[in-house]
C-alpha cells in the first residue's frame, strides 16, 4: 500500500524528469550537438511500440490465450527485416517531400489530395483513440492498485476531478504541446521529445526485466522451476500451446500480419520511425536492435504469468495486474514503485507521441483545409496564420487526449488491454494497401486509394468498432448475437457465416478483402491526373533519381517574391520565413534571383516548406493562390518528357549499337572491296608477264626458223618475266603470312649501316638501269640494333625500288641517309619524283593501296611492299612514314631503336 500523498508527488517528479530530458534534448539540438542522432536512440524511440498493453497486458493475454501474445512482437520483427526495403523508401520519400504524417504521406502520393488526407485523418483518429484510452486506463488502474483501492470496479465511483488519470492526461497534453508543437517547424522533428521517449523505453524495459528477474529468480528457482510448478494447474492448461483447432493458426497468422502493418502505420510509429528519423543509416543498426528489444521485453512474460496464477490461485485478480501485484504482495516497496514508473513510461510515451501525430493530422487535414476554404478570402493578407495554426494544434492535442479519456471512462472499462489494441491495429492496417501500393505501383490512382480506404474502414467499423461499442452499451446486444434486423448473415463477428476464426482475423480478412480489391480495381479503371502521375513518379522512383533531380516534375509556376514571403510568413512567422528564404538563396545555385520575382525553384521550395507546416494538400492550395500564371503547356511537356525519358535513353543505346554495327559493316565492306581490288590488281600484274611469256614461247614454238640472236633475246625476256612472276607470288605469299600474324623474326645484333650498304649493292643494277644518281650519307659509327637482317634488308630494298620507280625519269636522283638520334636510328630514302599528296601519306602504307596514275607506268608493285615494310618496322618497335608534297619528291623515313650500350 502506498499513500496517495507519496505516490502523486513521485509520479509528478518522474514526469518532471521527462520534461527536463526533453528540454535538454531540445537545447542540445539547438546548439548543434544532437544527443538523439544515433541508431541506439532511434531504435529505442521505435520501442514506443511497447505500451501499457505490452507492460501489463502481455501477461494477461498469456494467461487468457497462451503463446499468441507473442504475435504482436513477431510481426514487427519480421517487418523490420523488410524495413530496409519498405521503411527506408518511406523515410527517403518523406524527407524529400517534407512529409510529416501518414495522412500527409497518402494525400501527397495521390496528387496532394485534401480529401484523401482528411479521410485518413478521420480513420486514424477513430482508430487510435481507443488505444489512447487503454493507456489512460492502465495509468488509472495501476494508481488505484498502488493506493490499495482494489479492483477497477470501484473506479466508476470516483469523480472525474478526483481521478488521477485525468490529471495525468492533462499533464501529458501539456508535455505534447511543449515538446511536440511548441512552434511550427518545417521538418517537424523534435529531438527533445525523442530523447524523452527513448528514456522511457529504457525505463520500461528495465522495470519489466527487474520484476521478471525478481519473480523468476527470487520467488522461484528459475524458469524451469516455474514451468515444473505449472504442470497440472488447471488455469495454466492452455499456457504452453496454441489451441489445436485449425482456426488457431489462422488467427496466429492474421495477428502477425496486423502487427506487421501496425509497426509501420500506427501514427506514433510513423512519427518515430519516419518523421523523427535523423539519418537513414540509423536503420542499419535499428533493424536488429529493435527486435532485440522486443524479445527482451517478452522473455519474462511467461514466468510472470505462471507465478501470478500460482500466487493468486483463488482470488479474482485480473492477470493484467500481475506485474504490479506480485512485487506488491511480497512487500518490495522500491521494486513496486519502479514497476509503477515503468508502466507509466509505457503508457505516457504512447499517449504523447500518438497525440502529437494525430494533432498534426487533425490540424493539417481536418481543420486547416476547412478554414482555408471557408475563410481564406476574408483573411487579410497580413494576418498571421501561424498563431492560428499553433492554436489549432494545441486544441487538437487536448481534444485527442480528452477523447481518449472519455472513451476510457465510458467504454474502455469493459475490456482487457490487449483486445482494444488489436482493434486499433486492424484500423491502421487499412493504410497498408494505399501506402505500400503507392510506393511500388505507379498505376495506383487517387480514386483507387480513396475507395480502398473507405471500403476497408467501413468494414472495420462494422466488424470491429460497432460490436465494440455494443459492449459499452451504445447498441443493443442483439446486434452481435442475432445480427442487425435479425439477419444472421450480417452478424458482425460472423459476416456471411464466416466462423472458426477470432474477431481480429475475421475483421482483418474482410477489411483487407474490401480494401485491396477496391484499391486495385478502381485504380485499374481510372486514369491518374497529371499531379497524381507526377507524385507517383516521385514516390516510386525515389531511389532512381539523383538528389538534384528530386524536384517536382511539374512546372510550379512563378510568383512575386513579396507575395511568397508574406505567404510563408503567415504560416511560419515572419522571421522564420525570411531565414528560410535567405538560406535557400545562399545554397541554391540555379537561376538568378531578383528581388521581385521568385523563380520556379524557389516556388517549389516554398511549397515544401509550407508542406512541413500545414501538409501537402493545403500547401498546394495556398501556393496556387499567389501564382502568377499556370502554364499548362509546359507541365504537359514535362510529363511527356518524363514518360519518354526512359524510352529515349533506351533508344540512345540502340542508336549507338546500330552505329557501331554500321561502322563495322562499312569496314568489312571496305575490306572486301579492297580485297577484290587487290585480286584484280594481282591477277592483272600476273597476267602481263604471263601473257608476254606465253606469246614469246608461242612464237618460238611456231617459228623454228627464227635466228639465234632473236631466239636468245626472246628467251631472256621470258626468263625476266618469269622472275618477275616469282617475285610477285613470293611477295603475295609473304604478305599473307605477315597479315595472318605469323611473322617470325630472327633477331640478332646488327649494324644498320652495313645492311643499308648491302641493300644498295643489291639494288645497284636497278639504279644503273634507270640512270639514277645515288647519294648516300651514312654514319659509320652508328650503334648496333636488334633485328632481323633479311627483313630489314627487304624494307630498305623496297624503299629503294619505290624511289627508283618514282624518281624523275630524266635526271633521277636518290639520296639515302642514316642518322643517329637520341633513342633510335633514322633511315631516310629521298627521291625527286612526282610526290604524294597529303591524303596519300597514310594510305600508301595500307595493303592493296597503290599510288595510281603514276604516268610513266613504271609501277611494278603489288601494293604490298609498303604494307609489308610497315609491319616489319613495327615489329622492330619502329615507325615508318613519308614526308612529301606533290611535285617536290618524297622522303620515306623509318626508325629503329638501338640497343643502349
Amino acid at each position, binding site marked *: 500500500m502506498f499513500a496517495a500523498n507519496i505516490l502523486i508527488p513521485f509520479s509528478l517528479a518522474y514526469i518532471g524528469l521527462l520534461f527536463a530530458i526533453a528540454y535538454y534534448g531540445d537545447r542540445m539540438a539547438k546548439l548543434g550537438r544532437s544527443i538523439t542522432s544515433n541508431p541506439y536512440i532511434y531504435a529505442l524511440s521505435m520501442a514506443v511500440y511497447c505500451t501499457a498493453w505490452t507492460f501489463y497486458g502481455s501477461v494477461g493475454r498469456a494467461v487468457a490465450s497462451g503463446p499468441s501474445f507473442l504475435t504482436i512482437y513477431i510481426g514487427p520483427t519480421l517487418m523490420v527485416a523488410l524495413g530496409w526495403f519498405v521503411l527506408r523508401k518511406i523515410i527517403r520519400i518523406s524527407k524529400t517531400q517534407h512529409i510529416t504524417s501518414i495522412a500527409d504521406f497518402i494525400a501527397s502520393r495521390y496528387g496532394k489530395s485534401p480529401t484523401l488526407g482528411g479521410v485518413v485523418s478521420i480513420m486514424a483518429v477513430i482508430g487510435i483513440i481507443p488505444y489512447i484510452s487503454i493507456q489512460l486506463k492502465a495509468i488509472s488502474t495501476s494508481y488505484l492498485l498502488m493506493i490499495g483501492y482494489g479492483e477497477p470496479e470501484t473506479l466508476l465511483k470516483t469523480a472525474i476531478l478526483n481521478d488521477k488519470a485525468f490529471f495525468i492526461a492533462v499533464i501529458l497534453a501539456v508535455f505534447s504541446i511543449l515538446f511536440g508543437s511548441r512552434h511550427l517547424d518545417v521538418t517537424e522533428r523534435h529531438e527533445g521529445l525523442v530523447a524523452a521517449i527513448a528514456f522511457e523505453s529504457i525505463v520500461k524495459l528495465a522495470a519489466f526485466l527487474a520484476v521478471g528477474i525478481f519473480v523468476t529468480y527470487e520467488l522461484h528457482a528459475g524458469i524451469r522451476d516455474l514451468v515444473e510448478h505449472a504442470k497440472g494447474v488447471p488455469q495454466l492448461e492452455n499456457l504452453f500451446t496454441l489451441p*489445436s483447432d485449425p482456426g488457431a493458426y489462422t488467427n496466429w497468422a492474421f495477428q502477425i500480419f496486423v502487427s506487421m502493418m501496425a509497426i509501420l502505420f500506427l501514427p506514433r510509429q510513423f512519427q518515430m520511425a519516419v518523421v523523427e528519423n535523423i539519418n537513414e543509416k540509423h536503420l542499419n*543498426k535499428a533493424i536488429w536492435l529493435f527486435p532485440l528489444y522486443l524479445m527482451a521485453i517478452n522473455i519474462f512474460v511467461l514466468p510472470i504469468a505462471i507465478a501470478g496464477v500460482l500466487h493468486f490461485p483463488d482470488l479474482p485478480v485480473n492477470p493484467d495486474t500481475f506485474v504490479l501485484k506480485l512485487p506488491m504482495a511480497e512487500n518490495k516497496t522500491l521494486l513496486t514503485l519502479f514497476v509503477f514508473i515503468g508502466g507509466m513510461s509505457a503508457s505516457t510515451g504512447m499517449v504523447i507521441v500518438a497525440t502529437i501525430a494525430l494533432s498534426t493530422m487533425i490540424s493539417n487535414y481536418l481543420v486547416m483545409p476547412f478554414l482555408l476554404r471557408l475563410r481564406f478570402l476574408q483573411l487579410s493578407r497580413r494576418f498571421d496564420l501561424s498563431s492560428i495554426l499553433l492554436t489549432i494544434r494545441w486544441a487538437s492535442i487536448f481534444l485527442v487526449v480528452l477523447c481518449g479519456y472519455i472513451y476510457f471512462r465510458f467504454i474502455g472499462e469493459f475490456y482487457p488491454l490487449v483486445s482494444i489494441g488489436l482493434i486499433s491495429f486492424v484500423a491502421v492496417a487499412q493504410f497498408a494497401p494505399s501506402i505500400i501500393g503507392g510506393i511500388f505501383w505507379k498505376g495506383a490512382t487517387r480514386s483507387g486509394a480513396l475507395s480502398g480506404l473507405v471500403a476497408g474502414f467501413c468494414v472495420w467499423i462494422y466488424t470491429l468498432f460497432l460490436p465494440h461499442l455494443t459492449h459499452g452499451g451504445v447498441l443493443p446486444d442483439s446486434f452481435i448475437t442475432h445480427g442487425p434486423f435479425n439477419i444472421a448473415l450480417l452478424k458482425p463477428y460472423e459476416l456471411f457465416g464466416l466462423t472458426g476464426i477470432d474477431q481480429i482475423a475475421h475483421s482483418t480478412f474482410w477489411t483487407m478483402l474490401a480494401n485491396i480489391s477496391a484499391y486495385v480495381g478502381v485504380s485499374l479503371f481510372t486514369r491518374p491526373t497529371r499531379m497524381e502521375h507526377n507524385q507517383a513518379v516521385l514516390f516510386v522512383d525515389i531511389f532512381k533519381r539523383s538528389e538534384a533531380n528530386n524536384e517536382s516534375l511539374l512546372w510550379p509556376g512563378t510568383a512575386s517574391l513579396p507575395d511568397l514571403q508574406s505567404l510563408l510568413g503567415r504560416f511560419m512567422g515572419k522571421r522564420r520565413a525570411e531565414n528560410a528564404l535567405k538560406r535557400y538563396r545562399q545554397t541554391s545555385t540555379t537561376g538568378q534571383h531578383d528581388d521581385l520575382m521568385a523563380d520556379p525553384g524557389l516556388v517549389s521550395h516554398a511549397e515544401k516548406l509550407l508542406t512541413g507546416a500545414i501538409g501537402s494538400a493545403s500547401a498546394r492550395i495556398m501556393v496556387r493562390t499567389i501564382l502568377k500564371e499556370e502554364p499548362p503547356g509546359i507541365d504537359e511537356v514535362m510529363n511527356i518528357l518524363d514518360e519518354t525519358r526512359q524510352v529515349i535513353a533506351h533508344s540512345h543505346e540502340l542508336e549507338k549499337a546500330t552505329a557501331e554495327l554500321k561502322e563495322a559493316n562499312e569496314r568489312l565492306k571496305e575490306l572486301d572491296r579492297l580485297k577484290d581490288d587487290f585480286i584484280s590488281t594481282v591477277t592483272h600484274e600476273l597476267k602481263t608477264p604471263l601473257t608476254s611469256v606465253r606469246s614469246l614461247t608461242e612464237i618460238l614454238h611456231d617459228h623454228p626458223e627464227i635466228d639465234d640472236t632473236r631466239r636468245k633475246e626472246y628467251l631472256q625476256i621470258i626468263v625476266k618475266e618469269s622472275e618477275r612472276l616469282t617475285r610477285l607470288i613470293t611477295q603475295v605469299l609473304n604478305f599473307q603470312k605477315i597479315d595472318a600474324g605469323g611473322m617470325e623474326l630472327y633477331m640478332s645484333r646488327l649494324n644498320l649501316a652495313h645492311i643499308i650498304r648491302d641493300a644498295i649493292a643489291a639494288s645497284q643494277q636497278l639504279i644503273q638501269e634507270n640512270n639514277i644518281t645515288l647519294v648516300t650519307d651514312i654514319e659509320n659509327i652508328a650503334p648496333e640494333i636488334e633485328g632481323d637482317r633479311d627483313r630489314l634488308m627487304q624494307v630498305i630494298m623496297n624503299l629503294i625500288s619505290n624511289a627508283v620507280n618514282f624518281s624523275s625519269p630524266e635526271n633521277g636522283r636518290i639520296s639515302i641517309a642514316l642518322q643517329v638520334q637520341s633513342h633510335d636510328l633514322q633511315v631516310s630514302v629521298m627521291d625527286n619524283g612526282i610526290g604524294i599528296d597529303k591524303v596519300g601519306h597514310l594510305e600508301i602504307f595500307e595493303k592493296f593501296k597503290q599510288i595510281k596514275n603514276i604516268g610513266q607506268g613504271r609501277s611494278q608493285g603489288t601494293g604490298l611492299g609498303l604494307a609489308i615494310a610497315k609491319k616489319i618496322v613495327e615489329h622492330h618497335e619502329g615507325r615508318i612514314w613519308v614526308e612529301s608534297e606533290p611535285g617536290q619528291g618524297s622522303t620515306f623515313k623509318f626508325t629503329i631503336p638501338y640497343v643502349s650500350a
Partner: protein
Amino acid sequence: MPQNSDKNKRLVSLFLLGAVFFNYPLLFIFNHKSYVLGFPILYLYIFSLWLLMIVMMIVITTRRNSQATKRSEP
C-alpha cells in the same frame, strides 16, 4: 547501389523464411505439451527462432560494411 541491393535481397529472403518458420505448418510440429530441457517446446522453438533471426540480421547488416571497406582498399 549494388551493395544495398545485395542486402535488400538477403533481408527480404530472411523475412520470407521467417514468415514461413513462424507459421503453420511448421508451428504445428512444435505445438504440443512437451518439454525440452525443462522448457515448453513451443516457446523454446519461437524464442530460438527469434534469436536466430536477430543474429542473421546482425550478420547481414554488418557484412555490408566489411565488404565496403574491402572494396575501397585497392
